[in-house]
């Protein structure tokens, strides 16, 4: 959290900045800027790869180890989530939802390690929102055909067309903004509290007190936002079914 905030020590000033432009290079005249969010995502990939690899190897027919029980619980959790929200016929979405949940959760939790959570970058979460949008439209075409897809926009009445289009776009946008804003706001509030407590009692007050708030803003909020984002994705995709 603290890293978001630049304290200008003399003139008690608090600013919030966007993610750093960590790397810059160009391939074939194409300038590429790697954001801090991407660097942290690579760390997330590393963590998840190690965790998934450890969890998923050496599984036995009889689950005796806690490791295997945890692995089965995680997979069963996502399976249950997809089956309950979307139905069994959408069970192939389990992999995407599971991966999305894990990525979102671990990304948000990166804030606990003092890194900038990638989920507090709108570009990152908007990507997932765009994926949701594409999956939703794809499911519409798949279940209703091209005709049903276009017909869906003029229902129940033709003049609803603009509203339907806005509604379609608003879903992933609101979903993305909610996730991004919750995590960013958590970071900002946490940073503000750090900053404010640092001003009093010679900075001693910033020991311990923010930990309690961090429980909510980092741990709880990370879980809730990942869960909400996945649930909304599932709901949008399965509701897009044309009949």
């Amino acid at each position, binding site marked *: 959290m*603290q*890293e978001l905030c*630049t304290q200008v020590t003399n003139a008690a000033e608090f600013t*919030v*900045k*966007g*993610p*750093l*432009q*960590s790397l810059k290079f160009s391939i074939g005249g194409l300038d*590429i*800027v*790697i*954001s*801090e*969010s*991407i660097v942290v*995502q*690579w760390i*997330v*990939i590393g963590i*998840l*790869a190690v965790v*998934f*690899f450890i*969890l*998923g*190897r050496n*599984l*036995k*027919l*009889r689950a005796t180890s806690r490791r*295997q029980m945890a*692995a*089965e619980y*995680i*997979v*069963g959790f996502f399976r249950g989530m997809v089956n309950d929200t979307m139905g069994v016929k959408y069970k192939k979405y*389990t*992999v*995407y939802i*599971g*991966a*999305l949940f*894990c*990525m979102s959760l671990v990304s948000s939790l990166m804030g606990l*390690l*003092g*890194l900038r959570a*990638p989920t507090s*970058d*709108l*570009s*990152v979460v*908007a*990507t*997932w929102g*765009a*994926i949701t949008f594409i999956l939703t439209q794809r499911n519409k075409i798949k279940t209703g055909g091209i005709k049903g897809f276009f017909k869906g926009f003029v229902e129940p009445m033709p003049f609803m067309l603009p509203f339907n289009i806005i509604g379609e776009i608003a879903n992933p946008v609101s979903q993305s903004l909610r996730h991004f804003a919750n995590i*960013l706001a958590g970071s900002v509030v946490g940073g503000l509290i750090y900053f404010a407590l640092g001003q009093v009692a010679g900075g001693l007050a910033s020991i311990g007190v923010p930990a309690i708030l961090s429980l909510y803003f980092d741990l709880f909020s990370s879980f809730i936002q990942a869960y909400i984002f996945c649930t909304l994705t599932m709901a949008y995709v399965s509701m897009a079914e044309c009949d």
Partner: protein
Amino acid sequence: MDILSLLRAFDEAAGQPTFSLVDINVDTIVFTLINTGIIVLIYFFFLHKPVCKILDQRAAAVNKDMDDAEKARKEAEAAKDEYEQRLLQSKDEAGKILADATKRAQQRSDEIVSQANAEAAALKQRAEESIERDKKRAVNEIKDEIADMVILAASKVAEKEISAEDNERIIAGELERIGKEN
């Protein structure tokens, strides 16, 4: 201050530029897409696939166990029925054998008794016959002897002049003697 914050402070001191706080950056979107894809693959191959495989295997094993148990239960029930039937059969057989044996024993005892009765009757008859024969023979002998005695007595009477009273006395005395002898 942790080491990362220190690094960041260093970066910022070096004037490293940042994106604006609320921004859509195409590069970030592209890399996030790639990273998300990588995580989907990692999740699928490292966790989802092996766990699903083991879960399916377990479901199959459990199904097989349940089927086996059902089969074993049915077999046991069939065996039990068979044993019960056999037990009933053997009970019947035992009863039959017992009844048979009792009947045969009864028959045999009846036979023995009737045979014994017949034998006894035959024995009795034979004894009676022999007694009768002996009696007849004895009577005949007595009769012969009496006749002899009478002839003897008569001849004695004839030897002497004997009165009627003497005759009677002599005869009576002879008869008595005969009676004593016999």
